[in-house]
Structure formats: structure tokens, C-alpha cells
């Protein structure tokens, strides 16, 4: 297993060089849907962190028992179990937030990031590496969500995390908190990230 990245590499790669959202374009459904407020986006990132961490650890523990043709089913069932836990937890302790996020919490089950990390890392490497990979990828995911949500919330409502940052006279760009704003913001930010990456390389 000499060619596999170490735990530390896995951790750092997830944050920027292999950012799940900007570089791998995975899990775009929550990225677009829950980013009309920073608070919702951070709750989603927390949920993903929990699910990804637990799923990666469990899959890594049972990696020698996995049969190749059944592994995707095992992945999804493991993920579905943890998503149920998160969903019940949010409904119990953060009822309003769970109402706002609606179906997007259960949709974490089919989020490609988690299945991809189980497949690429957890089903091949040790528990510690898998856990640090999960934390790194989740931090990268949180960073991406935060960047999109900040732009959308500040331009759309003049608020950040519920506090007013732009003057009262700011004409709210309603389009930013509506579905089209999600596509436009993410498209432009993705273009900016590509541009910076290309400049760094050249």
C-alpha cells in the first residue's frame, strides 16, 4: 500500500487541492439548495461531517469483508442508517432548522461525496486514515458551502449569519436567495476558482 496517500495527505487534500465541491463537482444538490442562508449551510455541513465520519469509519472497519458486487449496497445502507440518526437528532433539537432544510437532510444518503469517499478511501485504507480523510473532505465541503452561502446571503438580504452587514438602504437582490441565484453564484465562483488554479499552475 505504498502508493496510497497517508492520513495527513488525505486530510489536507480534502480541504483545497481536492475540494469535493469546487474541484470534484460532487454533491451539488445540497450545495445549491441550502445555501440561501449561512446558518442552514453550516447545519448541512455539520450533518455531512457526522455522516461521512461515521460511514468512513464503519466501512474501513469492515473493508476486508466487503464483496465487490455488493459494496455499493452496503455503502448506501450504512449511510442511510447514519442519516436517519442525524435527521431524528435535528428534528428533536433544532426543529425549525430541520423544517427549513426539509428533504435535503435525507438526500445526504445519495450525496455522491460520501459514496465516493467510501469507495476511494475507506474501503482501502485503515480507520485512522479514513477518519482524517472524512474530516478533511467535510471541511472542504463546509468551506465551499460557506463561500457560496455568504455571497448569496449578503447580496440577497444584506445580512450575514442573521446580522445586518450592509446598510439599510441596500436594495436586496431577491434573485440571490431564489433558485437562479444559486446557479449563478456557484457558476461564477467556480469560474473564479478555475481561474485562480490556472494562474497558479502557469
Amino acid at each position, binding site marked *: 500500500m505504498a502508493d496510497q496517500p497517508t492520513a495527513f495527505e488525505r486530510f489536507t487534500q480534502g480541504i483545497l487541492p481536492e475540494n469535493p465541491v469546487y474541484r470534484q463537482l460532487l454533491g451539488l444538490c445540497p450545495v445549491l439548495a441550502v445555501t440561501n442562508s449561512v446558518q442552514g449551510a453550516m447545519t448541512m455541513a455539520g450533518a455531512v461531517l457526522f455522516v461521512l465520519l461515521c460511514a468512513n469509519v464503519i466501512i474501513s472497519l469492515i473493508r476486508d469483508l466487503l464483496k465487490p458486487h455488493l459494496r455499493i449496497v452496503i455503502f448506501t445502507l450504512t449511510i442511510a442508517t447514519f442519516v*436517519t440518526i442525524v435527521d431524528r437528532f435535528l428534528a428533536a433539537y433544532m426543529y425549525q432548522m430541520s423544517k427549513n432544510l426539509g428533504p435535503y437532510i435525507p438526500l445526504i444518503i445519495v450525496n455522491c461525496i460520501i459514496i465516493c469517499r467510501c469507495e476511494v478511501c475507506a474501503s482501502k485504507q485503515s480507520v485512522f486514515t479514513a477518519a482524517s480523510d472524512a474530516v478533511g473532505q467535510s471541511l472542504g465541503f463546509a468551506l465551499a458551502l460557506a463561500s457560496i452561502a455568504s455571497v448569496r446571503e449578503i447580496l440577497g438580504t444584506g445580512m450575514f449569519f442573521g446580522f445586518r452587514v450592509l446598510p439599510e438602504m441596500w436594495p436586496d437582490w*431577491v434573485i440571490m436567495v431564489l433558485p437562479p441565484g444559486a446557479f449563478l453564484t456557484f*457558476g461564477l465562483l467556480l469560474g473564479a476558482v478555475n481561474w485562480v488554479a490556472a494562474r497558479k499552475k502557469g
Partner: protein
Amino acid sequence: MNYLIDIMLIAVSAALINNFVLYYFVGICPFIGVSRQIDMAVGMGLAVTFVISIAAFLSWTMTTMVLIPAAPLTAWIGGFFMSPEAAAKIDLTILSYIVYIFAISASVQFVEMYVRRFFPALYKSFGVFLPLITTNCAILFACLTIMSNVSGVDNPADAWDLGRSLTLAFFGGIGFTIAIVIMAGIREELDFCDIPPALRGAAITLIVAGILSMAFMGFTGVDTGLKNALKSDSAAQIDPKPIPKDESPLTSVIIGETDKKEWS
């Protein structure tokens, strides 16, 4: 008559107004990945419509027969082990996500086997997309919507029946097909454009999707208008009440439910 109006409203709303891709953002991965050519987009769209209808049938059946409290099958099996009153209280909705994802994987697998065996030509055209569909959020999203309309309602009489659920799923799939085919048409033309290098690929697709999504917002309020028109048509003789002006469908939908508190 009312039932037909209901079905029609659900269909229009699922296919156009609250388009799965452009309003709810589900199924974005294939929307960006498989929208390079029109024929592939049509294949993907039809495959999704096909699977989503089957999955909706399965999930509606599972929800009403097994998962919700007082579901017939659960109560019957539970009746062997406990008193009928206790059996009627068994609530298995906590298992719903696991059950749905299992139903989706199973239906995708069976559809693939069936199509490959009996319709080889069809399999060639959209068979390759079938395994991808398991992780397509649109399918699970349809199942969850159906579940919330079956078990989440306060009044049991409002719960959706099989017809409404299948309408939502089928027309949701049609809406997905419309969106992905339009996108593929635009992207075929985009190949001849001079796009800045940083925006090439996914970025320009997302921006185009944003503009498409704005265009689809033009359908906002169609359902309210249609409902008023149909209702007043069928009830015109009895109750010629004019359509209330203050309903103003446009603003009520533009400011979505989640953002209402910040805007009022």
C-alpha cells in the same frame, strides 16, 4: 372532478413550476454530466422517468402498507405477537430512508435486468445510464415528497392516494427530461462559442442553468391561476364568486416559504 383538477395541478406543478432540477436542485449531477448531446440527454431523461415511476409505486405501497402507524400489513403481522390495539400503534416511519434506498436500488437492478433481457434495443439506448440512477437524488426526492404527503398530513383524508403519487413522480421525471434536453440543446450550440477558459465546462453550464431557472420562474402562479379557472368553471353556476385579488400568486411563490420570515 375535483380529483381530476388535483391531478392536473400536481402534474403542472411537478413538471414546470417546481421543476425538479431548476427549482429543487435534485438530479444536478446527471444534469451537468450527461447533457452534452441531445440524444444522450433524451435517453437519460426517459430512464429517470421510467425508474422514478416504479420507485414511486414501490415507495407509496411500502409507506401505506408497512411504514405508517396502523398500516395493514404491519398490523396484521404484529397481531400475531401482541394485542391488535398495540399492533395498530407500531410506527415504522423511522426506517423509511433505509426502506426507500433499498427499494430504489432493487428497482434499478430489476429494471436493468428486465430491459436487457426483453428490450435489447432499448437497453442499448439507455441501459448505460441505469446504474447511475441509483444515486440520482431525484428518485429519492420523489419518494420523500410522497412520504411527506402520505404520513405527514394532519387529516388522514388529505393523504395522497396512488394516483396522485404516480402523477407527481411521472411528471417530475418529464420535467427532468425537459430541463436536461433544453440544456443539451444549448450546450451543443455552446461548443461553437468562445467562452473564457476558466468558465468552460461545468461553470458555464451552471450559469446557463441559472438563466434557464429564471425563465422557468415565469411559470410561477400558473397553478393558482389554473386552479381558480378550473374551480370557477365547474362551480360557476352555484358560486360565481370572483377570484380574490389579494392572493397575488406571484409574490407568494417568489418569496419561497423558507424565506418568508426574512422578507415580511
